[in-house]
Protein backbone atom coordinates (compact mmCIF):
# COMPACT_ATOMS: atom_id res chain seq x y z
CA UNK A 1 0.00 0.00 0.00
CA UNK A 2 2.80 2.39 0.91
CA UNK A 3 5.39 0.89 -1.42
CA UNK A 4 5.19 3.47 -4.19
CA UNK A 5 4.95 6.57 -2.03
CA UNK A 6 7.36 9.42 -2.64
CA UNK A 7 9.25 11.14 0.15
CA UNK A 8 6.83 14.09 0.05
CA UNK A 9 3.85 11.72 0.32
CA UNK A 10 5.32 10.23 3.50
CA UNK A 11 5.92 13.72 4.85
CA UNK A 12 2.30 14.66 4.02
CA UNK A 13 1.12 11.59 5.93
CA UNK A 14 3.27 12.66 8.90
CA UNK A 15 1.87 16.20 8.76
CA UNK A 16 -1.66 14.77 8.70
CA UNK A 17 -0.91 12.68 11.79
CA UNK A 18 0.38 15.73 13.65
CA UNK A 19 -2.71 17.64 12.55
CA UNK A 20 -4.97 14.85 13.82
CA UNK A 21 -3.05 15.02 17.11
CA UNK A 22 -3.74 18.75 17.22
CA UNK A 23 -7.46 18.21 16.55
CA UNK A 24 -7.75 15.39 19.07
CA UNK A 25 -5.91 17.42 21.71
CA UNK A 26 -8.14 20.43 21.13
CA UNK A 27 -11.25 18.27 21.30
CA UNK A 28 -10.03 16.64 24.51
CA UNK A 29 -9.26 19.99 26.07
CA UNK A 30 -12.69 21.35 25.28
CA UNK A 31 -14.24 18.20 26.76
CA UNK A 32 -11.80 18.18 29.69
CA UNK A 33 -10.89 14.64 28.76
CA UNK A 34 -7.58 13.53 30.26
CA UNK A 35 -7.63 10.13 28.59
CA UNK A 36 -6.41 11.29 25.19
CA UNK A 37 -2.72 11.40 26.26
CA UNK A 38 -2.04 7.86 25.08
CA UNK A 39 -3.93 8.45 21.84
CA UNK A 40 -2.02 11.67 21.10
CA UNK A 41 1.33 10.02 21.86
CA UNK A 42 0.43 7.13 19.56
CA UNK A 43 -0.56 9.49 16.75
CA UNK A 44 2.63 11.50 17.22
CA UNK A 45 4.69 8.29 17.18
CA UNK A 46 3.02 7.12 13.94
CA UNK A 47 3.56 10.56 12.39
CA UNK A 48 7.18 10.43 13.53
CA UNK A 49 7.69 7.09 11.76
CA UNK A 50 6.12 8.48 8.57
CA UNK A 51 8.33 11.56 8.77
CA UNK A 52 11.40 9.43 9.45
CA UNK A 53 10.60 7.35 6.37
CA UNK A 54 10.10 10.47 4.24
CA UNK A 55 13.36 12.04 5.42
CA UNK A 56 15.18 8.73 5.00
CA UNK A 57 13.96 8.42 1.39
CA UNK A 58 14.98 12.04 0.74
CA UNK A 59 18.36 11.45 2.40
CA UNK A 60 18.95 8.32 0.34
CA UNK A 61 18.06 10.17 -2.86
CA UNK A 62 20.43 13.07 -2.15
CA UNK A 63 23.13 10.91 -0.63
CA UNK A 64 23.33 12.71 2.71
CA UNK A 65 21.45 14.51 5.43
CA UNK A 66 18.43 16.21 3.79
CA UNK A 67 19.22 19.84 4.60
CA UNK A 68 19.48 21.21 1.09
CA UNK A 69 16.61 23.72 1.09
CA UNK A 70 14.17 25.56 3.37
CA UNK A 71 11.61 22.77 3.12
CA UNK A 72 14.11 20.15 4.30
CA UNK A 73 15.40 22.40 7.08
CA UNK A 74 11.88 22.94 8.42
CA UNK A 75 11.08 19.25 8.17
CA UNK A 76 14.30 18.31 9.93
CA UNK A 77 13.69 20.86 12.72
CA UNK A 78 10.16 19.53 13.32
CA UNK A 79 11.49 15.95 13.27
CA UNK A 80 14.16 16.92 15.86
CA UNK A 81 11.53 18.44 18.15
CA UNK A 82 9.39 15.31 17.89
CA UNK A 83 12.40 13.07 18.53
CA UNK A 84 13.19 14.97 21.68
CA UNK A 85 9.55 15.01 22.75
CA UNK A 86 9.32 11.24 22.38
CA UNK A 87 12.41 10.90 24.61
CA UNK A 88 11.89 13.73 27.11
CA UNK A 89 8.16 14.41 27.09
CA UNK A 90 7.04 10.84 27.52
CA UNK A 91 9.70 10.18 30.18
CA UNK A 92 8.82 13.20 32.29
CA UNK A 93 5.09 12.86 31.55
CA UNK A 94 4.54 16.57 31.17
CA UNK A 95 0.84 16.71 30.44
CA UNK A 96 -0.15 18.72 27.35
CA UNK A 97 3.42 18.86 26.03
CA UNK A 98 2.40 16.23 23.47
CA UNK A 99 -0.50 18.41 22.38
CA UNK A 100 1.68 21.50 22.05
CA UNK A 101 4.38 19.51 20.20
CA UNK A 102 1.71 18.19 17.87
CA UNK A 103 0.54 21.76 17.20
CA UNK A 104 4.05 22.97 16.44
CA UNK A 105 4.91 19.98 14.24
CA UNK A 106 1.62 20.27 12.35
CA UNK A 107 2.13 23.97 11.62
CA UNK A 108 5.80 23.67 10.63
CA UNK A 109 5.37 20.60 8.44
CA UNK A 110 2.13 21.71 6.77
CA UNK A 111 3.49 25.19 6.02
CA UNK A 112 6.70 23.74 4.55
CA UNK A 113 4.71 21.29 2.42
CA UNK A 114 2.23 23.94 1.33
CA UNK A 115 4.90 26.24 -0.13
CA UNK A 116 6.21 24.37 -3.20
CA UNK A 117 8.85 27.04 -3.82
CA UNK A 118 10.70 25.95 -0.67
CA UNK A 119 11.24 22.54 -2.22
CA UNK A 120 11.44 23.50 -5.89
CA UNK A 121 15.20 23.39 -5.97
CA UNK A 122 17.91 22.02 -3.77
CA UNK A 123 21.67 22.16 -3.76
CA UNK A 124 23.57 18.93 -3.95
CA UNK A 125 26.80 18.19 -2.14
CA UNK A 126 26.37 21.22 0.09
CA UNK A 127 28.64 19.65 2.65
CA UNK A 128 31.38 19.10 0.12
CA UNK A 129 31.32 15.39 0.85
CA UNK A 130 32.63 16.11 4.33
CA UNK A 131 30.78 14.08 6.98
CA UNK A 132 31.95 16.42 9.78
CA UNK A 133 30.28 19.40 8.14
CA UNK A 134 27.17 17.28 7.68
CA UNK A 135 27.32 16.40 11.37
CA UNK A 136 27.76 20.07 12.23
CA UNK A 137 24.63 20.98 10.26
CA UNK A 138 22.57 18.08 11.62
CA UNK A 139 23.47 18.83 15.27
CA UNK A 140 22.81 22.54 14.75
CA UNK A 141 19.34 21.83 13.41
CA UNK A 142 18.72 19.25 16.11
CA UNK A 143 19.51 21.95 18.68
CA UNK A 144 16.87 24.09 16.95
CA UNK A 145 14.45 21.22 17.58
CA UNK A 146 15.42 21.38 21.25
CA UNK A 147 14.82 25.13 21.26
CA UNK A 148 11.45 24.49 19.62
CA UNK A 149 10.50 22.26 22.54
CA UNK A 150 11.85 24.91 24.93
CA UNK A 151 9.58 27.44 23.25
CA UNK A 152 6.64 25.10 23.84
CA UNK A 153 7.40 24.58 27.53
CA UNK A 154 7.85 28.35 27.78
CA UNK A 155 4.42 28.97 26.24
CA UNK A 156 2.95 26.43 28.64
CA UNK A 157 4.69 28.20 31.54
CA UNK A 158 3.27 31.55 30.45
CA UNK A 159 -0.24 30.09 30.22
CA UNK A 160 0.05 28.42 33.62
CA UNK A 161 1.50 31.58 35.18
CA UNK A 162 -1.23 33.70 33.60
CA UNK A 163 -3.98 31.39 34.86
CA UNK A 164 -2.60 31.39 38.41
CA UNK A 165 -1.98 35.14 38.51
CA UNK A 166 -5.43 35.85 37.07
CA UNK A 167 -6.94 33.35 39.53
CA UNK A 168 -8.60 31.30 36.79
CA UNK A 169 -6.89 27.91 37.17
CA UNK A 170 -9.83 25.88 35.81
CA UNK A 171 -10.86 24.92 32.27
CA UNK A 172 -8.11 23.88 29.88
CA UNK A 173 -5.47 25.21 32.28
CA UNK A 174 -6.26 22.26 34.58
CA UNK A 175 -4.18 19.93 32.42
CA UNK A 176 -1.07 22.10 32.29
CA UNK A 177 1.93 20.90 34.32
CA UNK A 178 2.94 22.83 37.42
CA UNK A 179 5.01 26.01 37.36
CA UNK A 180 7.99 24.23 38.94
CA UNK A 181 7.87 21.26 36.54
CA UNK A 182 7.72 23.53 33.51
CA UNK A 183 10.52 25.75 34.77
CA UNK A 184 12.72 22.75 35.55
CA UNK A 185 12.05 21.22 32.11
CA UNK A 186 12.79 24.53 30.36
CA UNK A 187 16.16 24.85 32.12
CA UNK A 188 17.07 21.27 31.14
CA UNK A 189 16.09 21.89 27.52
CA UNK A 190 18.09 25.11 27.43
CA UNK A 191 21.17 23.32 28.79
CA UNK A 192 20.76 20.54 26.17
CA UNK A 193 20.14 23.01 23.33
CA UNK A 194 23.09 25.27 24.18
CA UNK A 195 25.37 22.24 24.58
CA UNK A 196 24.34 20.80 21.21
CA UNK A 197 24.66 24.14 19.42
CA UNK A 198 28.08 24.68 21.04
CA UNK A 199 29.27 21.26 19.84
CA UNK A 200 27.92 21.99 16.37
CA UNK A 201 29.65 25.37 16.22
CA UNK A 202 32.88 23.87 17.54
CA UNK A 203 32.85 21.25 14.78
CA UNK A 204 32.03 23.91 12.17
CA UNK A 205 34.70 26.28 13.51
CA UNK A 206 37.47 23.75 12.91
CA UNK A 207 36.71 23.76 9.18
CA UNK A 208 35.96 27.46 9.04
CA UNK A 209 39.39 28.30 10.47
CA UNK A 210 40.98 26.18 7.73
CA UNK A 211 39.08 28.02 5.00
CA UNK A 212 37.69 31.40 6.07
CA UNK A 213 35.93 31.87 2.71
CA UNK A 214 33.95 28.66 3.09
CA UNK A 215 31.25 30.22 5.28
CA UNK A 216 29.08 33.17 4.36
CA UNK A 217 29.45 36.05 6.83
CA UNK A 218 25.67 36.50 7.27
CA UNK A 219 25.23 32.87 8.17
CA UNK A 220 28.19 32.99 10.53
CA UNK A 221 27.00 36.13 12.29
CA UNK A 222 23.41 34.97 12.65
CA UNK A 223 24.40 31.56 13.99
CA UNK A 224 26.84 33.04 16.49
CA UNK A 225 24.30 35.65 17.61
CA UNK A 226 21.68 32.93 18.21
CA UNK A 227 24.16 30.75 20.07
CA UNK A 228 25.30 33.73 22.14
CA UNK A 229 21.72 34.79 22.91
CA UNK A 230 20.78 31.31 24.17
CA UNK A 231 24.05 31.02 26.12
CA UNK A 232 23.48 34.40 27.77
CA UNK A 233 19.89 33.38 28.61
CA UNK A 234 21.22 30.21 30.21
CA UNK A 235 23.86 32.10 32.17
CA UNK A 236 21.33 34.64 33.43
CA UNK A 237 18.91 31.87 34.39
CA UNK A 238 21.54 29.95 36.32
CA UNK A 239 22.61 33.15 38.10
CA UNK A 240 18.97 33.85 39.04
CA UNK A 241 18.77 37.01 36.93
CA UNK A 242 16.30 35.78 34.30
CA UNK A 243 13.42 34.02 35.95
CA UNK A 244 9.79 32.98 35.72
CA UNK A 245 7.81 34.67 32.94
CA UNK A 246 10.82 36.71 31.75
CA UNK A 247 12.74 33.48 31.22
CA UNK A 248 9.73 31.99 29.46
CA UNK A 249 9.37 35.01 27.20
CA UNK A 250 13.05 34.73 26.37
CA UNK A 251 12.51 31.08 25.34
CA UNK A 252 9.65 32.05 23.00
CA UNK A 253 11.26 35.17 21.48
CA UNK A 254 14.64 33.54 20.93
CA UNK A 255 13.04 30.62 19.12
CA UNK A 256 11.05 32.99 16.91
CA UNK A 257 14.31 34.73 16.08
CA UNK A 258 16.08 31.39 15.47
CA UNK A 259 13.28 30.22 13.19
CA UNK A 260 13.32 33.48 11.22
CA UNK A 261 17.09 33.26 10.86
CA UNK A 262 16.74 29.99 8.92
CA UNK A 263 15.71 31.92 5.77
CA UNK A 264 18.74 34.24 5.60
CA UNK A 265 21.03 31.37 6.63
CA UNK A 266 19.66 29.17 3.87
CA UNK A 267 19.62 32.05 1.37
CA UNK A 268 23.24 32.86 2.17
CA UNK A 269 24.19 29.33 1.15
CA UNK A 270 22.36 29.73 -2.15
CA UNK A 271 24.14 33.01 -2.68
CA UNK A 272 27.45 31.24 -2.88
CA UNK A 273 28.67 30.66 -6.41
CA UNK A 274 29.47 27.38 -8.09
CA UNK A 275 27.44 24.32 -7.07
CA UNK A 276 24.71 23.44 -9.49
CA UNK A 277 21.06 23.27 -8.59
CA UNK A 278 19.07 20.24 -9.45
CA UNK A 279 15.42 20.46 -10.34
CA UNK A 280 13.14 18.08 -8.48
Amino acid at each position, binding site marked *: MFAGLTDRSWLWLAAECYFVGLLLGTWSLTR*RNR*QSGVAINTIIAVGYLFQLTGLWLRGRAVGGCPLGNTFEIFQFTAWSAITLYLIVGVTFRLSLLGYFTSCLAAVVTIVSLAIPAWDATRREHIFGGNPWIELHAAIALFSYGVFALLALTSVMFLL*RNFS*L*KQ*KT*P*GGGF*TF*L*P*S*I*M*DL*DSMSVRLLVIGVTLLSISLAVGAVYWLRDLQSVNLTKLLLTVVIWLAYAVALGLRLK*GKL*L*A*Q*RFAWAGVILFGFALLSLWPVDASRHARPAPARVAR
Partner: protein
Amino acid sequence: MSADHFFVLGATHHTAPIEVRERLAVDAGTAEALRGELASIPGLREFTLVNTCNRVEFYGVATSPSAAVEVQARFCARQRFTAAEFEQFRMSLSGFDAVRHLLEVTAGLDSQMLGETEILGQVKDAYGAAQARGQTGPVLNRVFQKAFQAAKHVRTDTAISSGQVSVANVAVDLALNIFGSLAKTRILLLGAGDIGEKTAKAFQSRGAGSLSVASRRLESAMALADSLGAFALPFWLMPVKLAEFDIVVCATAAPDTVVSHATAQTAMRQRPARPLFFIDLALPRDVDAAAAKLQNVFLYNLDDLAKIADENRAAREAEIGKCRALINTRADALWKHIEPRLQASLNGNSPLPEQGRPA
Protein backbone atom coordinates in the same frame (compact mmCIF):
# COMPACT_ATOMS: atom_id res chain seq x y z
CA MET B 1 -42.78 -9.64 44.29
CA SER B 2 -39.05 -10.16 44.03
CA ALA B 3 -38.51 -6.40 44.23
CA ASP B 4 -39.34 -6.50 47.94
CA HIS B 5 -36.63 -9.06 48.55
CA PHE B 6 -33.79 -6.69 47.78
CA PHE B 7 -34.02 -3.65 50.03
CA VAL B 8 -32.17 -0.75 51.59
CA LEU B 9 -33.30 1.05 54.70
CA GLY B 10 -31.69 3.63 56.91
CA ALA B 11 -31.30 7.37 57.26
CA THR B 12 -29.12 9.88 55.43
CA HIS B 13 -28.36 13.58 55.46
CA HIS B 14 -31.28 13.97 53.03
CA THR B 15 -33.80 12.56 55.51
CA ALA B 16 -32.37 13.33 58.96
CA PRO B 17 -30.92 16.51 60.46
CA ILE B 18 -27.48 16.37 62.04
CA GLU B 19 -28.75 15.99 65.62
CA VAL B 20 -30.72 12.91 64.59
CA ARG B 21 -27.79 11.52 62.60
CA GLU B 22 -25.64 11.90 65.70
CA ARG B 23 -28.03 9.60 67.55
CA LEU B 24 -28.26 7.17 64.65
CA ALA B 25 -24.48 6.94 64.19
CA VAL B 26 -23.13 3.48 64.91
CA ASP B 27 -19.67 3.13 66.43
CA ALA B 28 -17.38 0.22 65.58
CA GLY B 29 -18.34 -1.85 68.63
CA THR B 30 -22.06 -1.37 68.13
CA ALA B 31 -21.72 -2.15 64.43
CA GLU B 32 -20.04 -5.43 65.24
CA ALA B 33 -22.71 -6.40 67.77
CA LEU B 34 -25.46 -5.33 65.39
CA ARG B 35 -24.04 -7.42 62.56
CA GLY B 36 -24.13 -10.43 64.86
CA GLU B 37 -27.73 -9.75 65.77
CA LEU B 38 -28.86 -9.21 62.18
CA ALA B 39 -27.21 -12.44 61.09
CA SER B 40 -29.67 -14.31 63.28
CA ILE B 41 -32.80 -12.80 61.67
CA PRO B 42 -34.75 -15.60 59.98
CA GLY B 43 -35.07 -15.10 56.22
CA LEU B 44 -32.33 -12.46 55.98
CA ARG B 45 -29.97 -14.17 53.57
CA GLU B 46 -27.47 -11.41 52.86
CA PHE B 47 -26.82 -7.97 54.33
CA THR B 48 -24.29 -5.14 54.48
CA LEU B 49 -24.17 -2.15 56.81
CA VAL B 50 -22.92 1.12 55.28
CA ASN B 51 -22.16 3.51 58.11
CA THR B 52 -20.62 6.96 57.49
CA CYS B 53 -21.00 10.36 59.14
CA ASN B 54 -23.84 11.21 56.77
CA ARG B 55 -25.62 7.90 56.44
CA VAL B 56 -26.44 4.61 58.07
CA GLU B 57 -27.90 2.15 55.58
CA PHE B 58 -28.70 -1.54 55.61
CA TYR B 59 -28.65 -3.35 52.27
CA GLY B 60 -30.31 -6.75 52.45
CA VAL B 61 -31.61 -9.73 50.53
CA ALA B 62 -34.51 -11.44 52.31
CA THR B 63 -37.00 -14.19 51.64
CA SER B 64 -39.84 -12.08 53.01
CA PRO B 65 -40.53 -8.39 53.70
CA SER B 66 -40.78 -9.12 57.41
CA ALA B 67 -37.00 -9.50 57.55
CA ALA B 68 -36.58 -5.82 56.67
CA VAL B 69 -39.03 -4.89 59.42
CA GLU B 70 -37.02 -6.98 61.84
CA VAL B 71 -33.75 -5.28 60.77
CA GLN B 72 -35.33 -1.92 61.54
CA ALA B 73 -36.62 -3.14 64.91
CA ARG B 74 -33.20 -4.46 65.99
CA PHE B 75 -31.47 -1.25 64.88
CA CYS B 76 -34.01 0.97 66.65
CA ALA B 77 -33.69 -1.06 69.82
CA ARG B 78 -29.90 -0.64 69.81
CA GLN B 79 -30.01 3.09 69.10
CA ARG B 80 -32.94 3.69 71.51
CA PHE B 81 -35.38 4.91 68.87
CA THR B 82 -39.05 4.06 68.75
CA ALA B 83 -40.25 2.74 65.41
CA ALA B 84 -42.52 5.77 64.96
CA GLU B 85 -39.66 8.17 65.70
CA PHE B 86 -37.26 6.41 63.30
CA GLU B 87 -39.85 6.31 60.54
CA GLN B 88 -39.95 10.12 60.48
CA PHE B 89 -36.38 10.08 59.16
CA ARG B 90 -36.31 6.71 57.48
CA MET B 91 -35.26 6.12 53.90
CA SER B 92 -36.60 2.82 52.59
CA LEU B 93 -36.29 1.53 49.04
CA SER B 94 -36.56 -1.84 47.39
CA GLY B 95 -35.90 -3.58 44.08
CA PHE B 96 -34.64 -1.41 41.22
CA ASP B 97 -34.81 1.76 43.34
CA ALA B 98 -32.53 0.19 45.97
CA VAL B 99 -30.04 -0.87 43.30
CA ARG B 100 -30.02 2.59 41.75
CA HIS B 101 -29.63 4.16 45.19
CA LEU B 102 -26.51 2.10 45.93
CA LEU B 103 -25.00 3.05 42.56
CA GLU B 104 -25.71 6.73 43.21
CA VAL B 105 -24.27 6.57 46.73
CA THR B 106 -21.10 4.85 45.54
CA ALA B 107 -20.61 7.35 42.71
CA GLY B 108 -20.91 10.25 45.16
CA LEU B 109 -24.18 11.53 43.65
CA ASP B 110 -26.00 11.17 46.95
CA SER B 111 -23.23 12.78 49.02
CA GLN B 112 -23.56 16.05 50.84
CA MET B 113 -20.47 17.23 48.94
CA LEU B 114 -21.55 16.22 45.44
CA GLY B 115 -19.07 14.01 43.60
CA GLU B 116 -16.78 13.43 46.60
CA THR B 117 -14.64 10.33 46.26
CA GLU B 118 -14.27 9.28 49.89
CA ILE B 119 -17.63 7.52 49.86
CA LEU B 120 -16.38 4.92 47.38
CA GLY B 121 -13.73 3.81 49.88
CA GLN B 122 -16.28 3.79 52.69
CA VAL B 123 -18.71 1.61 50.73
CA LYS B 124 -15.85 -0.70 49.76
CA ASP B 125 -14.88 -1.01 53.42
CA ALA B 126 -18.47 -1.76 54.41
CA TYR B 127 -18.79 -4.40 51.71
CA GLY B 128 -15.40 -5.88 52.62
CA ALA B 129 -16.41 -6.16 56.27
CA ALA B 130 -19.66 -7.96 55.38
CA GLN B 131 -17.94 -10.22 52.89
CA ALA B 132 -15.25 -11.17 55.42
CA ARG B 133 -17.97 -12.25 57.84
CA GLY B 134 -19.76 -14.30 55.18
CA GLN B 135 -22.75 -11.96 55.26
CA THR B 136 -22.84 -11.31 51.52
CA GLY B 137 -23.91 -13.75 48.83
CA PRO B 138 -24.33 -13.80 45.08
CA VAL B 139 -26.80 -10.90 44.96
CA LEU B 140 -24.96 -8.41 47.14
CA ASN B 141 -21.61 -9.47 45.69
CA ARG B 142 -22.82 -8.69 42.21
CA VAL B 143 -24.66 -5.49 43.13
CA PHE B 144 -21.71 -4.05 45.07
CA GLN B 145 -19.13 -5.02 42.45
CA LYS B 146 -21.27 -3.42 39.76
CA ALA B 147 -21.72 -0.34 41.94
CA PHE B 148 -17.93 0.06 42.19
CA GLN B 149 -17.62 -0.28 38.42
CA ALA B 150 -20.38 2.25 37.88
CA ALA B 151 -18.70 4.71 40.26
CA LYS B 152 -15.45 4.42 38.34
CA HIS B 153 -17.27 4.82 35.05
CA VAL B 154 -19.12 7.93 36.22
CA ARG B 155 -15.93 9.55 37.53
CA THR B 156 -13.98 8.76 34.39
CA ASP B 157 -16.61 9.80 31.87
CA THR B 158 -18.04 12.86 33.55
CA ALA B 159 -16.66 15.87 35.40
CA ILE B 160 -18.62 15.07 38.57
CA SER B 161 -15.45 14.78 40.67
CA SER B 162 -13.37 17.39 38.91
CA GLY B 163 -12.15 20.41 40.84
CA GLN B 164 -12.27 20.77 44.59
CA VAL B 165 -15.32 22.19 46.34
CA SER B 166 -13.89 23.07 49.73
CA VAL B 167 -11.72 26.13 50.32
CA ALA B 168 -8.95 24.06 51.94
CA ASN B 169 -8.78 21.56 49.09
CA VAL B 170 -8.89 24.31 46.47
CA ALA B 171 -5.83 25.80 48.18
CA VAL B 172 -4.07 22.42 48.06
CA ASP B 173 -4.87 22.01 44.35
CA LEU B 174 -3.47 25.47 43.63
CA ALA B 175 -0.30 24.57 45.49
CA LEU B 176 0.01 21.46 43.32
CA ASN B 177 -0.40 23.66 40.22
CA ILE B 178 2.58 25.67 41.41
CA PHE B 179 4.88 23.07 42.96
CA GLY B 180 3.84 19.83 41.25
CA SER B 181 4.34 17.81 44.41
CA LEU B 182 3.95 18.80 48.04
CA ALA B 183 6.53 16.31 49.32
CA LYS B 184 9.40 18.79 49.25
CA THR B 185 7.46 21.93 50.09
CA ARG B 186 7.78 23.74 53.40
CA ILE B 187 4.55 25.14 54.77
CA LEU B 188 4.11 27.89 57.32
CA LEU B 189 0.79 28.31 59.11
CA LEU B 190 0.28 31.78 60.58
CA GLY B 191 -2.35 31.72 63.31
CA ALA B 192 -3.64 28.84 65.39
CA GLY B 193 -7.35 29.07 64.59
CA ASP B 194 -9.75 26.48 63.17
CA ILE B 195 -9.66 27.43 59.49
CA GLY B 196 -5.86 27.45 59.43
CA GLU B 197 -5.78 24.08 61.15
CA LYS B 198 -8.24 22.58 58.64
CA THR B 199 -6.18 23.89 55.73
CA ALA B 200 -2.97 22.57 57.27
CA LYS B 201 -4.60 19.16 57.69
CA ALA B 202 -5.72 19.22 54.04
CA PHE B 203 -2.10 19.84 53.03
CA GLN B 204 -0.87 17.04 55.29
CA SER B 205 -3.45 14.62 53.91
CA ARG B 206 -2.12 15.31 50.39
CA GLY B 207 1.50 14.58 51.31
CA ALA B 208 2.88 17.96 52.44
CA GLY B 209 6.47 17.70 53.59
CA SER B 210 7.25 19.99 56.48
CA LEU B 211 4.78 22.14 58.44
CA SER B 212 5.53 24.94 60.92
CA VAL B 213 3.06 26.94 62.99
CA ALA B 214 3.55 30.54 64.13
CA SER B 215 1.13 32.40 66.35
CA ARG B 216 1.34 35.57 68.43
CA ARG B 217 0.77 33.33 71.44
CA LEU B 218 3.63 30.87 71.30
CA GLU B 219 1.83 28.40 73.57
CA SER B 220 -1.08 28.23 71.07
CA ALA B 221 1.38 27.63 68.25
CA MET B 222 3.10 24.91 70.28
CA ALA B 223 -0.19 23.20 71.15
CA LEU B 224 -1.34 23.18 67.51
CA ALA B 225 2.08 22.16 66.27
CA ASP B 226 2.01 19.30 68.73
CA SER B 227 -1.38 18.05 67.51
CA LEU B 228 -0.34 18.35 63.84
CA GLY B 229 3.12 16.87 64.24
CA ALA B 230 4.56 20.23 63.14
CA PHE B 231 7.20 22.69 64.36
CA ALA B 232 6.34 25.82 66.36
CA LEU B 233 7.91 29.12 65.35
CA PRO B 234 7.96 32.37 67.35
CA PHE B 235 5.80 34.85 65.48
CA TRP B 236 8.41 37.62 65.52
CA LEU B 237 10.78 35.38 63.56
CA MET B 238 8.32 35.08 60.66
CA PRO B 239 9.66 37.97 58.50
CA VAL B 240 13.19 36.64 58.87
CA LYS B 241 12.29 33.02 58.16
CA LEU B 242 9.70 33.70 55.45
CA ALA B 243 12.14 32.93 52.61
CA GLU B 244 12.54 29.39 53.91
CA PHE B 245 8.88 28.54 53.21
CA ASP B 246 7.12 27.75 49.93
CA ILE B 247 3.52 27.96 51.09
CA VAL B 248 2.25 30.37 53.73
CA VAL B 249 -1.24 29.83 55.09
CA CYS B 250 -2.31 33.07 56.77
CA ALA B 251 -5.18 32.80 59.22
CA THR B 252 -4.49 35.21 62.06
CA ALA B 253 -6.97 37.48 63.80
CA ALA B 254 -4.60 40.44 63.42
CA PRO B 255 -6.36 43.74 62.64
CA ASP B 256 -3.58 44.89 60.31
CA THR B 257 -1.40 43.46 57.55
CA VAL B 258 0.95 40.78 58.82
CA VAL B 259 2.98 40.27 55.62
CA SER B 260 3.77 43.56 53.91
CA HIS B 261 4.86 44.00 50.30
CA ALA B 262 8.36 44.80 51.55
CA THR B 263 8.50 41.62 53.66
CA ALA B 264 7.44 39.48 50.70
CA GLN B 265 9.89 41.28 48.42
CA THR B 266 12.78 40.72 50.86
CA ALA B 267 11.89 37.03 51.06
CA MET B 268 11.75 36.69 47.28
CA ARG B 269 15.18 38.27 46.89
CA GLN B 270 16.54 35.34 48.87
CA ARG B 271 14.68 32.74 46.77
CA PRO B 272 14.02 34.32 43.38
CA ALA B 273 13.80 31.08 41.41
CA ARG B 274 11.34 29.35 43.72
CA PRO B 275 7.69 30.44 43.88
CA LEU B 276 6.07 31.63 47.09
CA PHE B 277 2.38 30.88 47.54
CA PHE B 278 0.33 32.90 50.04
CA ILE B 279 -3.07 31.54 51.07
CA ASP B 280 -4.70 34.40 52.92
CA LEU B 281 -7.70 33.06 54.82
CA ALA B 282 -7.81 35.92 57.32
CA LEU B 283 -10.37 38.69 57.61
CA PRO B 284 -9.11 41.38 57.61
CA ARG B 285 -6.49 40.13 55.20
CA ASP B 286 -3.01 39.29 56.48
CA VAL B 287 -1.06 39.80 53.25
CA ASP B 288 -0.67 43.10 51.44
CA ALA B 289 -2.48 42.69 48.09
CA ALA B 290 0.42 44.42 46.32
CA ALA B 291 2.60 41.37 47.05
CA ALA B 292 0.73 39.54 44.27
CA LYS B 293 2.47 41.75 41.71
CA LEU B 294 5.87 40.31 42.63
CA GLN B 295 7.37 37.83 40.18
CA ASN B 296 6.95 34.21 41.32
CA VAL B 297 4.55 35.24 44.11
CA PHE B 298 1.01 33.87 44.05
CA LEU B 299 -1.56 35.30 46.45
CA TYR B 300 -5.07 33.96 46.95
CA ASN B 301 -7.46 35.32 49.57
CA LEU B 302 -10.62 33.78 50.99
CA ASP B 303 -12.86 35.28 48.28
CA ASP B 304 -10.60 33.98 45.50
CA LEU B 305 -10.66 30.46 46.92
CA ALA B 306 -14.41 30.53 47.61
CA LYS B 307 -15.06 31.71 44.04
CA ILE B 308 -13.09 28.78 42.59
CA ALA B 309 -14.86 26.35 44.95
CA ASP B 310 -18.25 27.75 43.86
CA GLU B 311 -17.34 27.43 40.18
CA ASN B 312 -16.25 23.83 40.71
CA ARG B 313 -19.46 23.08 42.58
CA ALA B 314 -21.53 24.57 39.75
CA ALA B 315 -19.56 22.52 37.22
CA ARG B 316 -20.26 19.37 39.19
CA GLU B 317 -23.96 20.18 39.45
CA ALA B 318 -24.08 20.66 35.70
CA GLU B 319 -22.94 17.05 35.32
CA ILE B 320 -25.68 15.52 37.48
CA GLY B 321 -28.04 14.80 34.57
CA LYS B 322 -25.34 12.98 32.63
CA CYS B 323 -24.35 10.98 35.72
CA ARG B 324 -27.92 9.99 36.52
CA ALA B 325 -28.44 8.81 32.94
CA LEU B 326 -25.32 6.62 33.19
CA ILE B 327 -26.39 5.28 36.58
CA ASN B 328 -29.95 4.58 35.40
CA THR B 329 -28.72 2.58 32.42
CA ARG B 330 -26.40 0.50 34.58
CA ALA B 331 -28.93 0.05 37.38
CA ASP B 332 -31.54 -1.05 34.88
CA ALA B 333 -29.24 -3.63 33.29
CA LEU B 334 -28.16 -4.87 36.72
CA TRP B 335 -31.71 -5.17 38.00
CA LYS B 336 -32.79 -7.02 34.87
CA HIS B 337 -29.99 -9.48 35.51
CA ILE B 338 -30.75 -9.96 39.18
CA GLU B 339 -34.55 -9.93 39.31
CA PRO B 340 -35.34 -13.24 37.55
CA ARG B 341 -32.64 -15.05 39.49
CA LEU B 342 -33.81 -13.58 42.76
CA GLN B 343 -37.42 -14.56 41.98
CA ALA B 344 -36.53 -18.08 40.89
CA SER B 345 -34.27 -18.78 43.78
CA LEU B 346 -36.69 -17.44 46.38
CA ASN B 347 -39.60 -19.39 44.90
CA GLY B 348 -37.61 -22.56 44.78
CA ASN B 349 -36.00 -21.85 48.12
CA SER B 350 -32.73 -22.88 46.58
CA PRO B 351 -29.37 -21.17 47.00
CA LEU B 352 -28.99 -18.07 44.84
CA PRO B 353 -26.95 -18.55 41.68
CA GLU B 354 -23.20 -18.22 42.04
CA GLN B 355 -22.45 -16.64 38.67
CA GLY B 356 -22.50 -13.19 40.23
CA ARG B 357 -19.74 -14.00 42.71
CA PRO B 358 -16.68 -11.94 41.91
CA ALA B 359 -13.54 -13.72 40.88
